[in-house]
């Protein structure tokens, strides 16, 4: 799951490198002007750049809290750094955007300061699934942004958009698919469970998981590319070399708007929705400022801005947003999404990884 973020950063890093420097140069003056400040960790590259440009200056204007944005490294490296620093009583960032798996791992060492809903009036705007809780109910993190993985096709090769994930299993699509190569970022077990076994509950038992693996194995002859590197699949999708697969809804939409013959479809079983949380390191002393920031980010208007400017799916309820149909469709869908089983990706990580590797390599 963390890989999504890693790769999300990769694809976004390319877009952005230049403006980043400018934004950082502009920061010190903002810092000097303010007494209150916050260090906020965001995925480096496109995310950080977009936040520096579209979100943080407005936040400082509205609240008087200066923001120093910190580029988070990819993978779980940031979680490890936060954990080590917290042991020494330091916080490289007060608030960080964290992947769901990183949230769960951080919970195991009480890394996240529990958040107080009394100080977060806007948190009620969020969809329930975006509130990350400790097992005892304390709130560990609040949904920051979300994004979808959908069924993508090349429009030259597929004149009609497929309607279901079942297209992956269609023998007519032999050697035509590009799928993500890791159990932790492809979420194909969840997709298989939802498509053929009635829902991700089918993954509750090891027996069920094995059944889903068996079904998923039938996809293998259709897969041309198991990709870790997004650029590789995106290129092949645009050229029609690999005309079908799973990919990110936002980037596919961007490519389509640039005139490439690609489309992203929300299958009737739903797209896969992944997301990042805001979480506060237990070593941070700026709890109040952190609450103000998280509350600010949970406003429908800010979530709408994120959708328009950054291309992420909102974490707040649809009816609160002023996004029109087209704007909403560009980042999300009303079809109930497939939610990744992050719990399994942590508790059964090695079992799933082993079976998965044997499935695709063997």
């Amino acid at each position, binding site marked *: 799951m963390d890989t999504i973020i890693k790769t999300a950063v990769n694809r976004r890093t390319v877009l952005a490198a230049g403006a980043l420097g400018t934004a950082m140069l502009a920061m010190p003056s903002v810092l000097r002007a303010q007494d209150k400040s916050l260090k906020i960790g965001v995925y480096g590259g496109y995310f950080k750049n977009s936040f520096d440009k579209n979100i943080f200056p407005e936040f400082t204007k509205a609240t008087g809290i200066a923001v120093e944005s910190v580029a988070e490294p990819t993978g779980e490296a940031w979680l490890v750094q936060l954990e080590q620093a917290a042991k020494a009583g330091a916080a490289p960032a007060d608030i960080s955007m964290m992947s769901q798996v990183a949230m769960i*791992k951080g919970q195991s060492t009480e890394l996240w300061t529990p958040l107080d809903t009394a100080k977060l009036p806007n948190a009620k705007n969020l969809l329930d699934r975006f509130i990350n809780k400790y097992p005892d109910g304390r709130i560990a993190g609040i949904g920051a942004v979300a994004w979808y993985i959908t069924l993508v096709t090349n429009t030259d090769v597929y004149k009609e958009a497929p309607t279901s994930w079942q297209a992956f299993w269609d023998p007519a699509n032999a050697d035509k698919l590009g799928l993500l190569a890791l159990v932790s970022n492809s979420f194909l077990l969840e997709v298989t469970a939802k498509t053929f076994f009635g829902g991700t509950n089918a993954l509750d038992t090891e027996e069920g998981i094995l059944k889903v693996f068996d079904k998923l194995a039938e996809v293998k002859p259709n897969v041309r590319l198991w990709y870790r*590197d997004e650029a590789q699949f995106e290129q092949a999708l645009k050229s029609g070399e690999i005309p079908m697969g799973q990919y990110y809804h936002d980037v596919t939409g961007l490519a389509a708007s640039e005139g490439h013959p690609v489309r992203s479809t929300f299958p009737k079983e739903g797209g896969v929705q992944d997301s990042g949380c805001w979480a506060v390191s237990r070593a941070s002393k700026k709890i109040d400022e952190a609450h103000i920031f998280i509350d600010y980010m949970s406003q429908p208007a800010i979530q709408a801005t994120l959708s328009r400017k950054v291309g992420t799916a909102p974490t707040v309820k649809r009816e609160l947003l002023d996004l029109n149909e087209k704007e909403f469709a560009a980042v999300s869908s009303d079809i109930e999404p497939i939610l990744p089983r992050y719990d399994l990706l942590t508790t059964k990580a090695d079992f799933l990884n082993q079976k998965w590797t044997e499935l695709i*390599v063997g």
Partner: protein
Amino acid sequence: MKREAPQSIADYGPLFFPAGMLLVFFVVPFGTMIVVSFFQRQQGGFYTPAFVFSNYERFLSVFFGGVLGFSLMLAVTVAICCVVLALPFTYLLSKLPRRLQVIWLVALLSVLSLSEVIIGFAWSTLFSRTAGITNILVQLGLMKQAVALSPSFGAVLTGMVYQALPYTVLVLYPALVRLDPTLMEAARTLGSSPVRAFFNVLVPALRNTIMATLIMVFIFALGSYLLPQILGRPQHWTLSVLITDQAIYQSNMPFAAAMAVFLVLVTLGLVALTLLIGRKGEKA
């Protein structure tokens, strides 16, 4: 002049710097890796210091044995292909006028400046159905329709040979340039054809160099993890790919370390075996 044995600690002075570098950049990291390989993995967390063999146990399976076997086979194949291609090439190169040699060497060195990513993507384009070399063959009337040559074992092999070939040439080049030209002349005077002289005189004379080159390319190829991913199917992924998966994507450092230690040990064992056989052959 006879070289005297070092008398005092100061005489060993020049060794301190390389020894220090070796310690800091090889012994310490490798030692850390060995230590971590015995740590206890915590699912849904990190790892805790311990002394367990479970990471090695997990590796000792038919599945990982197969992946290890494939990685070794691939590296050996790359090494042999490289030497088979590079030896005649370098020999002919060493016969060229100095100026032409320099141009060739500069061209080869420039290939080294390409990153593995660029090499991988370039070959995957060349091997693609939509933009690849088979389109040229179709235009020439040699093929009915364009096909995709990648992902396949051939594509992985081509990419890796392409990447390792400049190194091979650069290692063979000094030995071939310094080779006594009278050897080949004598063979020719005695009535041997050029091809026969090449195989009967030059190859045996360079046996140690060739062996060293094979080992170097083998080890170089064994560490490759990007090209098998870009140009191959999952069954062509090397052990290095799976180590990366564990270390970066699963944060399972202990298991990744155990696999890496195992790979290093197998590699060292194979190299030692090769040298041992070579030495025995020399005595006979």
